[in-house]
């Protein structure tokens, strides 16, 4: 089933729904993708929660996937945009799930709109989220090396496949998705990550989940655990041997971790 296309401030916004047919009043779950990505990274969990009757909103951030640009270059702007999108969708309260840059958007949303966040799940997170100079510079120049760096570093060292998802070559799929990002978008995303200032997370009172990959080179496990330590009610799930692209590397373990907090909170 096609996702939603809505208009917000004159721009088209795409929201994937996991092929769901939720009842009125169904609990909602919102997915926010990472830098250079789009809603398709959430294909499996989106379909899972949609099948279980939840209302799924897997957004394409501005300038990504099927949403019109321009891309924002600040996490706060993305968070404010997300609040407006959810309002347009009549979603008052939702579990917010974010990966990488999307985790910062989710984190910021939960801080600024605590009443609208019934649960928060941060995957591959770090706050702050500094970006290395070579990656930032290559992205600035729309150079393909930026995609190569991000894709290579997003997968655990030595990962040469053995994907749980039959027949899909993770490194190829990751690279192709980044290559589809429009010029300037990846750099805007990295700028947003690099400039994020958490400013303390003590105001987040909802149940939280932090999933860290022990072999994550982009947002090291230690950084994720530091984020968890700032949250009042955080469950930590560690994935041994897993890199930053945990939705590719461990799709079933990630979904297993998400199910309790998304469905019960």
């Amino acid at each position, binding site marked *: 089933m*096609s*996702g939603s296309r809505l208009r917000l401030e004159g721009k088209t916004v795409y929201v994937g729904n996991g092929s769901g047919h939720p009842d009125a009043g169904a609990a909602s779950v919102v997915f926010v993708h990472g830098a250079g990505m*789009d809603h398709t990274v959430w294909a499996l969990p989106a379909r899972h929660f949609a099948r279980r009757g939840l209302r799924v909103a897997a957004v394409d951030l501005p300038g990504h996937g099927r949403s019109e640009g321009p891309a924002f270059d600040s996490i706060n702007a993305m968070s404010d945009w997300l609040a407006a999108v959810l309002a347009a969708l009549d979603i008052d309260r939702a579990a917010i799930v974010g990966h990488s840059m999307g985790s910062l958007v989710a984190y910021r949303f939960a801080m600024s709109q605590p009443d609208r966040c019934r649960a928060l799940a941060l995957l591959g997170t770090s706050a702050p989220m500094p970006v290395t100079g070579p990656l930032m*510079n290559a992205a600035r*120049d729309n150079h393909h090396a930026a995609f190569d760096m991000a894709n290579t*570093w997003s997968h655990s060292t030595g990962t040469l496949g*053995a994907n749980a998802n039959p*027949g*899909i070559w993770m490194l*190829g799929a990751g690279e192709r998705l980044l290559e589809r990002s429009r010029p300037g978008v990846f750099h805007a995303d990295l700028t947003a990550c690099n400039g994020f200032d958490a400013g303390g997370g003590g105001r987040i009172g909802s149940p939280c989940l932090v999933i860290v990959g022990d072999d994550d080179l982009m947002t090291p496990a230690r950084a994720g655990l530091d984020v968890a330590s700032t949250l009042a009610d955080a469950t930590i799930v560690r994935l041994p041997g897993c890199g930053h692209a945990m939705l590719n590397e461990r799709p079933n373990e990630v979904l297993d971790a998400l199910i309790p907090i998304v469905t019960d909170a």
Partner: protein
Amino acid sequence: MADDEHRAPRPTGFDTLALHAGQRPDPATGARATPIYQSAAFVFPDSDFAVGLFNIERAGHVYSRLSNPTNAVLEERISALEHGVGAIAVASGQAAMHLAVATICSAGDHIVASRSLYGGTHNLLQYTLPRFGIETTFVDPRSPGAFAAAIRDNTRLVFGEILGNPGLEVLDVPAVADVAHAAKLPLLVDSTFATPYLCRPIDLGADLVIHSATKFLSGHGIVIGGLMVDGGTFDWEASGKFPTLTAPYDGFHDLVFAEEFGTQAFVTRARREGLRDFGACMAPTTAFHVLQGLETLPLRMQKHVANTREVVAFLGNHEAVDSVSYPELPSHPDHDLAARLLPNGAGAVFSFDIRGGREAGRTFIENLSTFSHLANVGDAKSLVIHPASTTHHRMDADALASAGIGEGLVRLSIGLEDPRDLIDDLGRALRRASRVAR
């Protein structure tokens, strides 16, 4: 910062991918080699997980027609070697071709294809698919303009072989890809004769690649298998011509593959519909054998090409040979294109014309001893066939000529033997054939 100062991490080398991509030591047993998972079906951990597998929300295996752990290693490995996003292992090269076509073409659709094709592919396109409402126009593979001119409103696919059959026409993949993409169509390339060691069509602009894994990929003439690789490059939604990928699919609860699976839309639909319904899956033991072949693909292709070059040089100077057709020869019409697209070699299959016509060809074949006379290519052992006295024996000289086949044309597939033994074998047989020709 200057453009060339951006330095990407060094990608894993081809030789390493050929050995490792898609596999880790078996977590249950520690087995280093890929185990053969000879099981028709796989136990569900629980009922909800089972539903999740059927609904594409869980990763894993259900039934070996749809996927199998041994096959999955092969599928990842060929994807890695071809620079695709994913692949599907199927029962034969023909099954790979059919799966690619059936995933995006329906009754009323049209294909533009090179006219220099493997006979089985030609049969499928010329005689069988029209029964299902899919027509094909065949064009000169050396003319990108001919591909463009043949495209109609209902065209859905452009197709060619990287090295044509039997003339070894080199498909100008970048140029034909430009033609296809200008018409918002994908380019499918059969890269069986090149293998990813010699050419990666996706890097050159193709969107989909198929192989007969029976040939050089498995490499030992022991299995029948096919592979279809999705480059993940084609934008099905932007094209607007592919409802199987962009419209709700009744057969899967209104799933819109392009929306939910993005760059993996094609390979996902092909598995979830094509394998499910047509059922031309690869046996896991076959996948194991192809994987064994892939492990030595770089070494074998180097040797195949090196041996071929020696044999081509020998035949080119032999008085009993009228002409040799191999793209690395300056006399071949695609010499320059081959140097550009196939710099590591133009494969190990080529043809030559023996003096004396049909009878000389028959005598030559019957006096070879190291070469095996059979209908296959890409074996570790050297192979030979004389179309005029075998596959095309019902054709007279005029009919053969119109198919681009001379009465004395002999096709060789050069194996991995000591090239001196191959040359000695060819020399002996040519001397016998010369006596017939006189």
